[in-house]
């Protein structure tokens, strides 16, 4: 088994644990590269099907290409799609910096979905190598009734034994891609032929390395127009994947505050 085989096998194991232990369960599908890999891995785990709904918590501010992609692949992949919307930015914590405040809408939209569908498990595509606070996550990360992430009190997690909800109103965030690196995602996309929106590929010297809301995400300088070129670029780059995501850079703790409150 090479590295990608190992990552795939581990993710499949995690998805099967989630499906077995957490009911009702849903997967977040943000339409980006990581969540497409996640849907693909679910189809690997469950022999070609995704036996739980996928959720798109829609900020209404994604790129048009992404909505088009969503409609096309909901059909092609036979997904049971749940849509949820987000409250207006005026209802968010005004003490957050502007981009983080905008991103917080998604937290509120997600919380509403979790409550509406009484979810015990939410599968999300975050990775440790994206951001410092994500590096401290668990594969099964319990959230209390308020959806807060209790960083000081994370449960032990070892030997592939994961936490399960033990109180009413709790849910578990399941992170099957936690050990994947950005370059692993791209190599896997290349190996498996997983479809993507073409915003990831360079046009006129720019491409998106990470996709969020259109108004708070900016493209990076790049000439990588094919999968092979993207992979070659990542092998040498020393800039951060989320450098184009405004909310990560507004203040030292903006992203942590978002995550503690339930952001992904």
């Amino acid at each position, binding site marked *: *088994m*090479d*590295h*990608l*085989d*190992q990552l*795939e*096998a*581990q993710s*499949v*194991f995690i998805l*099967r*644990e989630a*499906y*077995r232990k957490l009911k009702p369960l849903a997967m977040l599908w943000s339409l980006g590269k990581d969540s497409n890999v996640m849907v693909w891995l679910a*189809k*690997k*785990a*469950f*022999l*070609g099907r995704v*036996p739980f709904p996928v959720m798109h918590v829609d900020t209404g501010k994604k790129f048009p290409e992404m909505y088009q992609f969503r409609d096309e692949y909901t059909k092609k992949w036979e997904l049971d799609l749940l849509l949820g919307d987000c409250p207006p930015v005026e209802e968010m914590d005004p003490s957050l910096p502007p981009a983080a405040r905008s991103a917080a809408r998604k937290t509120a939209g997600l919380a509403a979905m979790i409550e509406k569908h009484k979810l015990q498990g939410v599968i999300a595509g975050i990775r*440790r*190598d*994206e*951001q*410092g*606070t*994500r*590096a*401290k996550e*668990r594969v099964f990360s319990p959230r209390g009734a308020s959806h807060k992430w209790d*960083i*000081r009190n*994370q*449960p*032990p*997690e*070892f*030997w*592939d*034994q994961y*936490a399960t909800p*033990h*109180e009413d109103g709790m849910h578990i965030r399941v992170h099957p891609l936690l050990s994947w*690196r*950005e*370059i692993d995602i791209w*190599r896997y996309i290349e190996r*498996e032929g997983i479809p993507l929106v073409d915003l990831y590929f360079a046009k006129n010297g720019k491409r998106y390395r990470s996709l969020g809301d259109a108004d708070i995400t900016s493209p990076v300088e790049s000439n990588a127009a094919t999968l092979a070129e993207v992979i070659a670029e*990542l*092998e040498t*780059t*020393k*800039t*951060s*994947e989320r450098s184009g995501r405004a909310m990560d850079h507004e203040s*030292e*703790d903006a992203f*942590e505050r978002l995550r503690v409150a339930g952001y992904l």
Partner: protein
Amino acid sequence: MSDTISSSQDAATPIVIVGHVDHGKSTLIGRLLHDTDNLQDGKVAQIIESSKKRGLKIEWSFLLDSLQIERDQGVTVDSTRIPFRLDTREYVIVDAPGHRQFLRNMITGAADAEAAVLVVDAVEGAREQTRRHAMLLHLIGIRHVIVLLNKVDLLDFDQAKVEAVEVSVNELLGKLGLEAAYFVPASARDGDNIASRSERMPWYSGPTLTEALARVPTPASRSELALRFPVQDVYRFGDKRYVAGRIERGRVRVGDTVVIGTQKTPARIASIESWHTAPHVSASAGQSIAVTLEPDVIPDRGDLLHHVDTPPAQASRVRTRLFWLRQEPLRVGESFRLRLATAEHAVTVTSIESVVNLDDLTMHPGTEVPPEGFAEITLSAAENIQFDAFAPGTPDGRGVLVDLQQRIVGGAPLIGPADIAVGEKSIHPSASVVTTQDRQRVKGHKGQVFWLTGLSGSGKSTLARAAENALFSAGVDVSVLDGDTLRAGLCKDLGFTEADRTENVRRAAEVARILRDAGQVVLVALISPLRSDRELARQIIGDGFEEVFVDADLDTCEQRDPKGLYAAARAGKINGFTGIDAPYEAPQAPALRVATGDGSVESAVAQLVSFVEGSVRAGSNARARS
């Protein structure tokens, strides 16, 4: 996190960094990433800014301590994993917190590491957390340990002084059966012997830290070992049934005959199924697969599939080397679920063989395992547990204890069956020559235990005493074990903590079993509020345990309040009172439910008496209800 760059296609080698708080773990990692050019652009500037904001010079630990509380308080709260590259080899550096109360976070980071770097302050030498971490490395099976003697600049790089520390650390590791692969004297702050050779220690000819990391062996393949395929789940999609799971070790081929679980059902692997890959005819260790079986039997989650000639060990009592993660001590009699791969068994702690003294790493007999302590204990299950003894570098015997709320409370590497040799504490209960049938014939009924559970004031004792009288008059050899009577004598050393209540139940169950074995009908009247405790009683007593739910609602019981206890609990004079500020878990499927909330005492007694008589007098037909 996005602070490093990486690329190779090989699997990364996880390396855990452990050591006592303030011995310099985070600084070491920061320095290592910096000196090996593994940091992203702008990261150093960011660290300098964060440090300045807090009035510090340059705090390398901020690379990993990404949480506000970590930076503000200068401690690592939770472990972090950072990808890292040396030449062409990929690593994952796991930064584990050194504080005592963060043992659970350390184990989270360390459990799957290939090797460890144990950071020891050369001036302070090994401290409490050094010993604790070394112990944990030993228990979780990490055998490749690099000792980094940090801050040797404070010893003026003096060879004799450094070697004296080396001797004492070596002695400590030796007690644990660990041997350091390398001792690297270093100054993490200044970069001596981290990525480049120190000019200030010309006497040192061993490897630098990066050279030592490059020599960490890659894991051995587990594909050549005997097959262990624990069932994770069984799916029915369309007209096919799939048995899904991950091969822990060994290899399986289409056409192989496998044996399923303790029932020993044989089946043939009809196919290995997958989606979007070429069809497989075989699969090996580490792969997550789905198979179809012929015949189409339905295994349970946790069943182990293995080849006929290479079965695992099997025992209902197992010995484990426990590392205990709960903040309260562990005592004999407590019940847990033992998770072993995908299997889960209800177990009870039947004995504590020895407890580790962390001051000198010696083993002593003990009655409890302290918070975050280490011990050797025996666990008993009602059924057989299939397992392979724990072995470093394999997934064998990786037991984990979870409590009734399914919270992980300890790691329990299984070291072997406990049936035969229990060492000095070995006990050999003698068997009676009088048989159960003999007793039954003489008494005219069989021995049986009726376990009355219910809230305080629900009428358990009243009911039991009245039934005792009626049954005795009808010629039944009957006795009553009632909560207050037990607590007045046999159990007067116990309080009302959860652990003490469990012990109270355990003793009542043991006494009931002895009386039952002697042919008596035993009515136990005990609140026994927790399902798990009653399950423990059921396990101890075995056959002939009947749960009777004495059912009156809380309001009624509180109104009756025959002993004035509810009033006292409401007034805050007693704590942990069942129904007020401690839970009562009603039986889900009692053998008998007696409602005592409204009806007369007489009818309740009649109901219980007729149930008992029907149960103990009848022959085999009464036992048909299972």
